[in-house]
Structures are given as structure tokens and as C-alpha cells.
């Protein structure tokens, strides 16, 4: 490329950067290009600067074409895509790094719920068993009147500990506390903590909590 031609091209680059001249009507404004060395182009796209090695040939095509050629469009799309990849990777890695560094602190979280395999041999759930022995959720009934205060915090009655879901137990405790509700057609219920053996889930064990009367919701 002769020196006068190079000067003319640099002028076109500058004009394109300023957004006037040399563009056909309707053509998009190109990203700013500046030569940073023999084979590195620095591109600023939407205020975010990046550089792409080896893009010189495509970028030159982009500058030289009086109309936007398909190759030039592809070259600019590739540059834009590269910027997008960097932005996306930056956000993703930053969120992950900060989350694992500081733990659960809004807006960061490692989403570690259910991450640990259960070490307990049992998993349990508080149930209300009706006269026929059919199992129901405790919250399916209201107006509980029990022979003793239901204590859901008692240790599991089987060999070994059980895994419980704290807020599910809390919901059951709230349902059992609805004693002031006027009970119509009360049913006889046995409130139990039923455990399933996690190695052999056909094996279940009922730990009695209280015997109650309550009405179907």
C-alpha cells in the first residue's frame, strides 16, 4: 500500500469514527478503529474497548469498501461477538467468584441448598394419620385438640438421625397450633413423624407425636 493511499485510508477511518462522510445512506456507523501495531486492532464498541489480533485484513476491507460488503459486515459482527463474549464471561465469572468468596450476601449466592448428600440414614415428614391409617398433610386439618402439646423438635425414634426440612416442620407446627378454630365434624387423628430409610425406602417407621381431633379443611 503506497503512503498516499494509506493516508487516504486513515482519513476514511477518522471520518467513519466521527460518523460523517463515506457512508452510504442507511449504513450503520462502524466501530472506531485504530492501529495498535502490526497485527492488532483496537475496537471500541459501545464504550467498551477491546482488541483483536489478526483482524487487520477484515477491518481494512471494511474501511476500503464504499458500500458495506458482506465480508466487512461479517468482520464487524465477529468483533462485536468477541466483545459480547468478553462481557458475558466477565459477568459470569465475577458473580461466581464473589459468591464463593463471600457466601450468601445479596445479590450474591452460591445456591448451595440441597448441595450436600444426606449423611442421615432417614428422611422424615410430619403426617396426620386418619382412622383408616391413611396419611395426610397436617395442614389438611384445622382446629387441632391434642392429648399433649405436639413437640416436633424431638429426636427421631429410629436408629440414627433423620433429615428434616425446617420450614416444612414449621408449617406443620403452625397448623397444629390452630386450636382455637371451631372444630366441626372432628376426626380422630394420630400425628406422627414418619421416617423413610434412605437406603431402603420401603422401610418406614412412625414416631408418635400426639393423638388429636381436628376437622378437615
Amino acid at each position: 500500500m503506497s503512503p498516499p493511499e494509506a493516508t487516504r485510508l486513515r482519513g476514511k477511518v477518522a471520518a467513519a469514527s466521527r460518523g460523517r462522510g463515506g457512508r452510504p445512506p442507511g449504513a450503520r456507523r462502524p466501530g472506531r478503529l485504530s492501529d495498535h501495531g502490526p497485527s492488532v486492532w483496537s475496537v471500541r464498541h459501545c464504550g467498551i474497548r477491546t482488541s483483536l489480533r489478526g483482524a487487520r485484513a477484515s477491518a481494512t476491507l471494511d474501511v476500503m469498501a464504499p458500500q458495506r460488503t458482506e465480508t466487512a459486515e461479517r468482520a464487524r459482527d465477529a468483533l462485536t461477538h468477541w466483545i459480547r463474549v468478553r462481557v458475558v464471561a466477565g459477568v459470569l465469572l465475577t458473580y461466581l467468584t464473589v459468591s464463593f468468596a463471600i457466601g450468601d450476601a445479596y445479590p450474591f449466592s452460591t445456591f448451595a441448598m440441597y448441595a450436600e448428600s444426606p449423611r442421615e440414614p432417614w428422611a422424615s415428614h410430619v403426617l396426620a394419620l386418619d382412622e383408616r391409617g391413611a396419611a395426610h398433610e397436617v395442614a389438611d386439618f384445622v382446629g387441632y385438640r391434642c392429648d399433649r402439646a405436639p413437640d416436633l423438635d424431638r429426636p427421631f425414634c429410629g436408629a440414627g438421625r433423620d433429615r428434616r426440612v425446617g420450614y416444612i416442620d414449621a408449617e406443620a407446627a403452625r397448623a397444629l397450633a390452630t386450636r382455637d378454630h371451631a372444630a366441626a365434624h372432628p376426626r380422630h387423628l394420630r400425628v406422627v413423624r414418619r421416617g423413610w430409610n434412605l437406603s431402603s425406602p420401603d422401610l418406614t417407621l412412625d414416631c408418635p407425636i400426639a393423638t388429636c381431633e381436628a376437622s378437615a379443611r
Partner: protein
Amino acid sequence: MRLVLALGGAWLAPSLLAAVGAGAALRFARRPRALGAGALALVAHGALVESLAAVRGARWHNYYTVAAALSGWLAVLAFHRLGEGRECEGAVERLAEHGAAAGLAATYVGAFASKLLASGASWLSPAELRALLIGQTGLVGDGPGAAVARAIVSSTALATALLAFVAAAQLSALAYPFTARARAAVGTALLAFHLGTLALTPVFYSEATALLLAFSYPWPTLLARAPKRRARA
């Protein structure tokens, strides 16, 4: 943030916070480049989420997916502001959308990494899914969901296959924000995971599901095609 526990005791402070947050969110919805409005919505949402966690004694991670996506969007806007340029404002929104998708994806990759770090490959043992289904549902009920839950608890192979699907879907979120095809494929897998969880348990990540629906599919293109189809019919 435990200081915001005081918010839970009175109506006025949370109501004001919710009003400010909703106003800022509406403004941000109308002007997605309004960094200040987005940041205010994020702060108000954070204060409410933290106060709720303090009152309930447990964090509800559902809300964190919204926070992660909004943070990703705002991070790109802030980065753009820090740069000297103001050109191609429309393109900034597209970049910010990719930032939000990256934030959303990070939540799933984080969930996968947590499992890997806490349990390794043993997380794929059926005990995890059994404990989850038993703890959440007690395996009661007569509906199809309860029947499937009982089948999963009984079948080691089924439980392991479902856990493997969940792990693969969460890991594949690494690719989610990079291309449109990856968004559609991974987004569909993650939606299947959330809807499957809802069918089997009371656990529903509504915010994450809404975000996946919004970000995973090329809605402008699909909606632009819809009237043409109607016209042809």
C-alpha cells in the same frame, strides 16, 4: 444486613421500601438504560429480601435469581458509563441483556459448583432426591405428581437419571449466555427442571422460570412472525 430485622416488625418501612422499589423498577422497565433507577430497584429489593430472611430465619433463594440477572444488566451499563463513549446506545441494551443472561446463568453454574464442592459425585446417589421428595411432600396424595414422586423414591435408576439430568442442565448453563441456540437449548432444559420440580414438590422458582422464559427465546422474531402466520391463515 441483619440490621434490617427491624423492618419486619413494622408495616411502614417495608411498605415504603416496596413502593420505592416498584417505582424504580417501573422506571427501569421503561428506560432500560437508566442505571440509577435499576440500582435503586436492586437496593430496595435487596433490603426487602434481607429483612424477609431475617424475619423467617431462612433465605429464599428464589429472589436471588432476579438479583443476579439485574446485577448483570447493571454491571454492563456501569461499565459502559465508565468508558468514555456514548455511541450505539441501542447496542448497549443488547449487551446489557447478555449481561443479565450471564448473571442468570451464573446462579445455575453456582448451584452445580456447590454440589460438586459439597458432595462430589456422591450427589448423584438417589438418597439426595429421596430425602428431598420425602421432606417436601411426605409422599402423600393421590394425584399423578404424588404417584411419580413415589416411583422416583422407589427406583434407584430413575432417581439417579433425574439427578444426572439436573446436574447436566445446571452445568450447561455455562454456555447459556453466549449464543442464541445455547440459550434456547439450555433454557428449555432448565425450564423442564423447574416445572418438573413444581410437579413433584411445592417448590417453585417462579422468578427464575419467568426470567428463563424471557431470556431463552427470540421473542421479537417469534412475535414478528406470528401476524404473518395469522395473515396467511
